[in-house]
């Protein structure tokens, strides 16, 4: 039960009940659709990035489990006002944090933001759930790279 409490902390449950920035901004200029074919969860991430590479607005839409919704909501709070490079560093370190006990911290990462995101580090003990915690971040990263689709599994052509 202890690691369950660690996973479903109050902060996470609070984000699930009141997700931040769950909307579609009219002036966003980068978008991506993220999809986890295993559980069917999907998320849209919208970014407004200005000429200096600063994220002026970030929002999401989608349905998913508590971990994926809380992660998306937290992400939007932390990325607001950051540069693309800072967002990338935060993503890299967050991925480390979700999978390793001795996470490597990328250069230039916002330590305060990282500390707040630590509420999601409980997924380390639930390997099946790491993709839930990182889906929104992968989608954000795809949007920054101007790819409009990302999935947690490789997906090719269809019938």
């Amino acid at each position: 039960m202890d690691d369950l409490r660690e996973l479903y902390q109050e902060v996470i449950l609070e984000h699930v009940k009141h997700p931040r920035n769950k909307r579609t901004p009219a002036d966003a200029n980068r978008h991506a659709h993220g999809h986890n074919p295993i559980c069917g969860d999907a998320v849209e991430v919208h970014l407004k990035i200005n000429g200096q590479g600063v994220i002026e607005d970030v929002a999401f839409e989608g349905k998913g489990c508590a971990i994926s919704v809380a992660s998306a909501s937290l992400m939007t709070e932390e990325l607001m006002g950051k540069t693309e490079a800072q967002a990338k560093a935060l993503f890299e370190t967050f991925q480390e944090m979700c999978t390793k006990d001795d996470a490597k911290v990328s250069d230039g990462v916002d330590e305060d933001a990282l500390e707040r995101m630590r509420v999601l580090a409980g997924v380390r003990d639930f390997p099946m759930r790491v993709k839930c915690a990182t889906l929104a971040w992968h989608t954000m990263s795809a949007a920054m790279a101007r790819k409009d689709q990302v999935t947690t599994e490789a997906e090719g052509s269809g019938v």
Partner: protein
Amino acid sequence: MSKASSAAKIAPGDNSTLAFDVERVRADFPILGQEIYGRPLVYLDSAASAQKPRQVIDAMSQAYETSYANVHRGVHRMSQLTTDAFENGREKVAKFLNAESSDEIIFTSNATAAFNLVASCFGRAHLGAGDEVIVSVMEHHANIVPWQLIREQLGIVLRVAPIDDDGNFLLDEFEALLGPRTKLVALTHISNALGTIVPVKQVIDLAHGRNIPVLLDGCQAAPHFAVDVRALDVDFYVFTGHKVYGPTGIGVLYGKRDLLNALPPYMGGGDMIASVSFEKTTFKDAPHRFEAGTPPIVEVIGLGAAIDYLAALGAENIAAHENGLRTYAEKRLGQVPGVRLIGTAREKASIVSFVMDNAHPHDIGTIVDRAGVALRTGHHCAQPLMQRLDLASTARASFGLYNTRGEVDILAEALESVSEIFG
């Protein structure tokens, strides 16, 4: 120990009868002694894959240890013994389905391979552009995607029989789909996601009234109750070994002999030929025509042992036990705050899908796992059905012959803690 005395020591709340002693059944399944996070394993995922009794495990290791060689090749003693055991497995499957002849039983690697075989062979023999195949909205992807691959090749049309919101198959709407271009009906017998039992006898009568053959997906039916392909008069029937308490790597396609022999081969290779020369090769009749290469020999022996095991327990006893668990579970889970059952058809097998108001199925799965409970969460390889129900996923408890009411209670308590966490 007499049956009566062992039945008498079953914990209260268990629905054992003198005819079906669940504790004794459980003792046959070594894995049920495992603990998960320090709690007894509560395995409620038999619809995904069933656990194996000692009898199956032993039959397979004994085959490897005492009589193993390739089949249908060579005159040596070991090959003979193995061929006999293998073909004996085919006889057992024929009896299990009440087929007229074991020549109507084709072994594949799983149910999926059987669907691909029918789609490819039936497609090449009988389907052309504009011809229609009817499936239902409840199909497993294994009975959808092979038809889409054939659609790409041949330009056939897939038509989809609907259900109502409770998951009942709509017979009138199905009948309305039958038309002059309908060449095959390919339907699930029991929905793996909802538990709905499709009225397949009526389906077959309606289709046969128009000379349309019927393929049934019996993956969830074969483990649950007796299937009689002759009483149904079904043309093709598919099931998979690992869901009937047998091994993985073995699937079964039943087909009426004349229908099978009118189909071209699926894969080419050894064992399926009558004679080969570079100018011309001729093929054997069914079943060998469809079994190119070395078959899953020991898996067939294991499947035979599983069928013996089910026969000894009695199909009716198994169905009664599982139905008792299902009704108990529906009542018990229905009392947990926030639980909504998905799939409340009039006729159901022992599958209970549900969602919760505040908790996503993925979170439910993680939380009950820590209580030792194995549930399936997700789309159950039935995404078109999930779209029809406007859901991304459900949690699903499925009950096998070794489950107990006590385990349903453990699930219900674990779900109560889910509803506490998510408020």
